[in-house]
């Protein structure tokens, strides 16, 4: 199973070297690609210094499109699985085997590193964010018919068939609840895996307060509009 770790990075020159070194140390068998999402700092220099290929987006497209770029690359290069892993050090590469297990076993097409399922620990979000997470978890659970506890986790593994779906059908801006709903509606199997989130090493959360107003609106709308569309067809065969 060829695995590609996709690290979307926007102005992450400070945190990148540590996380890239950590991935190499804990998971020597996997390839890594950094998607530099139009950074203004030395993100691509830092990635190249670590010997990691960089996909340089000439303009800032947002985390969703950056991730999609990683998928396009993974599809072109023939990888079986792509893992989305944040550059800020929140996601522990030591959890990679656990995250990959459901896909390797053929149980799931998409696995989510979840902070809330039994076995996960160490994450306490502010009240307002927790409220939003509960809302989107309930929405995703209702729509997909399966319990989904952590729709905002950015630590996920996708198999080729899901990536192929994301090539054309992809929720832009925030690839959270709408992405999971769409993938589930297309007939793919999602599984949550307990992981521990670490505090970010540097930088601030992607979800600043202006976005914290826009995010729920956008994600809710995107999720509901998805229900008005005919579900995308699951690609036959590969899993």
């Amino acid at each position, binding site marked *: 199973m060829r695995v590609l770790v996709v690290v979307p990075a926007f102005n992450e020159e400070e945190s990148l070297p540590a996380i890239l070194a950590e991935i190499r140390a804990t998971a020597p068998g996997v390839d890594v690609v950094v998607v530099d999402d139009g950074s203004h700092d030395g993100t691509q220099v830092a990635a190249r210094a670590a010997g990691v290929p960089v996909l340089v987006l000439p303009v800032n497209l947002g985390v969703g499109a950056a991730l999609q770029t990683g998928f396009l690359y993974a599809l*072109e290069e023939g990888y079986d699985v792509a893992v989305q892993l944040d550059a800020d050090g929140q996601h522990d590469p030591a959890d990679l085997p656990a995250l990959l297990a459901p896909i390797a076993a053929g149980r799931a097409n998409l696995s989510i590193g979840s902070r809330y399922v039994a076995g996960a620990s160490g994450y306490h979000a502010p009240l307002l964010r927790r409220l939003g997470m509960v809302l989107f978890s309930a929405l995703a659970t209702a729509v997909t018919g399966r319990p989904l506890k952590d729709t905002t986790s950015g630590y996920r593994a996708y198999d080729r068939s899901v990536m192929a779906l994301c090539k054309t059908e992809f929720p832009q801006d925030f690839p959270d609840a709408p992405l999971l709903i769409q993938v589930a509606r297309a007939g793919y199997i999602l599984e949550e895996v307990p992981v521990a989130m670490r505090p970010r090493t540097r930088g601030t959360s992607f979800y600043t307060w202006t976005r914290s107003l826009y995010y729920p609106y956008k994600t809710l709308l995107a999720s509901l509009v998805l229900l008005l569309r005919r579900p995308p067809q699951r690609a036959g065969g590969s899993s």
Partner: protein
Amino acid sequence: MTRPQLLAALLTVGLAVGVVELVRRRRLSEEYSLLALVAMAGVLVVAFWTSGVTTFTHWFGALYETSVIFFFGLVFVMVALVYYAVKLTRLTQEVRRLAQESALLRLKLERAERRDGEGGR
């Protein structure tokens, strides 16, 4: 011709000339200029064909001609805005896809150049 009619005529003709000039300088595409020119023609019709406007107002059930004109003017502006938003969305999608393609090609090129560098010297 009343004074408001004269003003409307001057204004719309002036704007139309401006729009055509923008098209001539390639600052505005023909596609978008059409919308503006049609709108100006509409203003001229409303300004000079007053009996028609009155008849339409009665048929529409409105009390004043002005409210009918403003209502349809606003509807036109809203439709135009949505039309532009659709165009913007498509442009955004196209730019995104191009940026992604550029990132993929750039990495491919870097690799090819490195291979050449190693093989050639």
